[in-house]
């Protein structure tokens, strides 16, 4: 009987050495506790998941592009000001589309999006000295010159939507209203860059900044 226990102990130690401890790093696909052959269609259902693979479609992707010349219900973009940055005459919109209300929350949202998507190259100040410059990103323009100060909002919108030079499109990351919000924050950066002590009206802020 003693031998049986010794053998059992040996087998346990051997198995534990093979299976290892929890949390050990491994690269093979994880084991299924309830494997597919015993419980078919539970964990791996014959449905398509976002960005998943498909054996049905020729390109191997589950994600589909809408067929050409179709518009999904409620997705018609017929407001050229809002969606293209163009006015009725086909020129770039100056100012912001009438449908958007440019208020503090709008600019704050623009600031958040700007910090995520634009600041890596354009920098948090908008001077074009973002972190990517250190890695070899060439001439990122500064916002603080007359060319960009006077550029129509619609043209900036078009740049965000379609990209320009080495900047690729950010249309997949920023929804149309977010692009306008980013432009509003960009205008705020430009204004702040030209700020003078006289612009600060709040007495407490003047105190903090040491303005007499």
């Amino acid at each position: 009987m003693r031998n049986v226990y010794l053998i059992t102990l040996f087998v346990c130690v051997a198995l534990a050495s093979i299976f290892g401890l929890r949390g050990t790093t491994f690269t093979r696909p994880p084991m299924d506790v309830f494997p597919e052959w015993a419980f078919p269609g539970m964990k791996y259902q014959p449905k398509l998941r976002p960005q998943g693979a498909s054996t049905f479609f020729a390109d191997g992707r589950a994600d589909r592009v809408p067929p050409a010349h179709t518009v999904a219900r409620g997705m018609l973009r017929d407001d050229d000001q809002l969606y293209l940055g163009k006015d009725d005459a086909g020129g770039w919109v100056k100012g912001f589309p009438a449908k958007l209300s440019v208020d503090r929350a709008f600019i704050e949202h623009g600031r958040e999006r700007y910090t995520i998507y634009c600041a890596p190259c354009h920098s948090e100040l908008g001077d074009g000295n973002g972190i990517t410059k250190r890695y070899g990103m060439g001439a990122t323009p500064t916002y603080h010159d007359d060319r960009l100060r006077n550029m129509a909002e619609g043209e900036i919108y078009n740049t965000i939507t379609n990209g320009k030079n080495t900047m690729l499109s950010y249309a997949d990351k920023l929804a149309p209203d977010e692009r306008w919000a980013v432009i509003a924050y960009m205008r705020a950066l430009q204004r702040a860059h030209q700020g003078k002590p006289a612009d600060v009206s709040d007495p407490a802020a003047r105190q903090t900044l040491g303005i007499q």
Partner: protein
Amino acid sequence: MSKLFPKSANKLPLQILIYLGVLAGIATAGATYYLTPKYTRVGYAPVQPVPFSHAQHVQEVGLDCRYCHSSVDKSGHSNVPTAQTCMNCHNVIKPTSPLLAPVRESFEKNTPVPWVWVHRTPDFAYFNHAIHVNRGVSCVECHGKVNEMDTVAHTQPLSMAFCIECHRNPEMRLRDPKDIFNLDSKNLADQGRAEDARKYIHDWKVMPPQSCSGCHR
């Protein structure tokens, strides 16, 4: 006639029973330890087609999670970035690196980069990223400190017990809204601000479902 069985054989039935009991105990302990996502999934770090380092891109470059995972706060599905997202920088930075060849090929030929899915929920569980990050649950709670990983590894079990534990006590996991994408931050409870967490739960109407149909349909 000689004795077929020695006298010790009288004790054998009892000994066998005890041994079977011990064996059952070992089997239970083994199953408890091994047949759980804490063993089967935690530590999974597959080899990816491009050796992308989250640590470098977050800590050195300072990118926000949402720069690449841009749908996480808008959609139930948090996207793996498109090849174009990589090319936003890598068309200029390291444009000829052989390590980036799969990304360039994907960008030019419009074919997918065969990234390996690390945190795969089973098809019967419906997890919504947007509602979690927009209600104070940081990425780090489920994905671990990805900002320190050179190779992404599965750090949490993501089992039903794991989900339910937080759905029952959300105040232990919630973060200040400004800290959600800062994976080095502490959640409110760990900051000793459990009172704030309860206030958020009330103000934001955080009501994590505990019914089956909350996550399964």
